[in-house]
């Protein structure tokens, strides 16, 4: 620390924050951040740099292996450029992942808050409901719902959200139970604040850390789930590409055109690994308790 006081800017304060510093010192978290930012940039900026769009059909270049001419990742059975499709699919898959995360985090947070704050019968019933949802293998539940309800991208997002809010609810419930007993909540009660004010304005800000961690991991999970059900043919429907349904059509050409399967699979793995790395880094950076011991 220098003796002369330096003017503290917003940026400076952000970088000096203990959690931010810890995150920045975690190589895996930084790699994760790099993977996710890189992939997102590629998906949104890549299409501008490519000479083809995802629907352009080049009949003379069907099944072209990677690096033929301008087709960096090759072409598919119809002669469409895989790179263009991959980037477009990435936009779809990541959008589904993010929106599903947002919806499921809201559901999970509200249920966890109510369950943890009310406790008693309400809490027990809500948490048993969480257990019951967790008893279904999520792929079974997802596929059944996707088969019963006409799958549009919005519906798929909603279905993924409906089957992945439970982890968040559990984490929030546990955290709220410990925050609830602290003095400032007793003070808030004495001030006569309403229950919903206490839940959302007093408790919620104090459990944001675990929620952020769970939300990041939920993005990873949602992207993976979308890939699973789209691969099996019940998710995002062609011609709209997603990483999962690109793999669905790749299966039958595995011997002749393995790049059809390899390219989207690598993209999914990079995205999911990236979010998992970030989530784990955030857990280390935000979870104060694990650093006291």
């Amino acid at each position, binding site marked *: 620390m220098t003796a002369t006081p330096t003017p503290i800017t917003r940026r400076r304060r952000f970088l000096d924050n203990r959690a931010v510093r810890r995150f920045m010192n975690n190589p895996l978290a930084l790699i994760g951040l790099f993977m996710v930012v890189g992939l997102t940039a590629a998906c949104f900026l890549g299409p501008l740099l490519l000479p083809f769009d995802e629907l352009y059909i080049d009949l003379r270049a069907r099944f072209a292996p990677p690096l033929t001419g301008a087709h960096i990742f090759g072409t598919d059975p119809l002669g469409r450029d895989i790179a263009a499709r991959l980037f477009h699919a990435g936009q779809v898959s990541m959008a589904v992942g993010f929106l599903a995360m947002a919806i499921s985090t809201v559901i999970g947070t509200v249920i966890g808050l109510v369950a943890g704050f009310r406790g008693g019968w309400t809490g027990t019933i809500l948490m048993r409901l969480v257990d019951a949802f967790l*008893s279904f*293998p999520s792929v079974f539940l997802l596929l*059944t719902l996707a*088969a*019963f309800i006409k799958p549009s991208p919005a519906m798929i997002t909603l279905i993924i959200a409906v089957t992945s809010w439970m982890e968040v609810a559990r984490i929030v419930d546990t955290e709220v139970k410990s925050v609830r007993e602290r003095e400032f909540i007793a003070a808030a009660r004495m001030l006569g604040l309403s229950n919903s004010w206490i839940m959302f304005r007093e408790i919620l800000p104090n459990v944001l850390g675990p929620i952020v961690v769970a939300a990041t991991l939920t993005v990873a999970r949602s992207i993976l789930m979308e890939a699973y059900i789209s691969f099996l043919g019940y998710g995002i429907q062609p011609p709209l590409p997603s990483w999962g349904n690109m793999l669905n059509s790749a*299966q039958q050409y595995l011997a002749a055109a*393995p790049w059809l399967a390899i390219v989207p699979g690598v993209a999914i793995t990079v995205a999911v690994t990236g979010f*998992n790395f970030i989530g784990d880094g955030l857990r280390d950076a935000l979870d104060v308790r694990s650093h006291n011991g």
Partner: protein
Amino acid sequence: MARFLIGRLWQSIVLLLLVSLIGFMVLNLAPGGPLSQFALTPGMTKEALDRIAEQMGLNRPLPVQYLDWLWKLVRGDWGKSFRDNRPVLDVIGSHLFATLLLMGASTLLSMLVGAWIGIRSAVRRGSLFDYSMTVLCFVALSVPTFWIGLVAIFLFSLRLGWLPAGNMYTVGDGSVRDILIHLVMPTCVLALVNVATWARYMRTATLEVINQDFVRTAHAKGLAPRRILMKHIVGNALLPMITLAGMQLPTLLGGALVTETVFTWPGMGRLFLDSLGYNDYPVVMGLLMFSAILVLAGNLIADLLVAFVDPRIRLE
């Protein structure tokens, strides 16, 4: 012990009821609800459909319908497959063995490999082995199972020709050796994700035990490090693994579904997807409920097993 047993059983029954409630809600989301079977029949009229609805009791209030459905479920009357008119439980039963074989083999493999990686990582904490395994486990948890399956088929069946690409046995063979050869790839692929889970838990569990007083005492007594590791540390770290095995069941079943699809393994997952393709809703619903019940039963058995092994829990 009796109190623990009753409490735990009661908990399972409540969960089972909630699971059935969710199942019933899902059932009513099916296009045409329970009537979908008849709605697809050619020449079906609106009047005939209404008549069938009344015969099936579908014009009654929902709670009554739910109780009726639940009672049938309890009695083992799970409806008939649209496809071949066989009772749903029979259809599931004939696919159960293949799935259990796959799940059992892959659990055994993943537990052995995962425990080995976890213990080694914990003992050599901070080593290159520890670090690279941590990264590898993350990647293993992030790779889609089906994609690894596709890559494995491409490498080991199509390119190298070492292993069969799918099915449970060669037509006309079906000997134990033949089944085992077909089992290798799906087992390894399904085990991959679980190895990562096991390794991470085993590492944490071992690290928790490794610094405890009784381990230091054992060292002070002059016991051989290997003996301390195997008997004192691993013995204690293994206990939570039983509970974890129960908790892993839904993931394992879901993974089995996807793996079976890629390798055309004739188990429950394969049946589930085929039934979806044929709009065979009774079988789909049956499998959904059956898998949840399997998970609940697995968790119950795991908890009872832990209580049986560890007196600390049942005395609480």
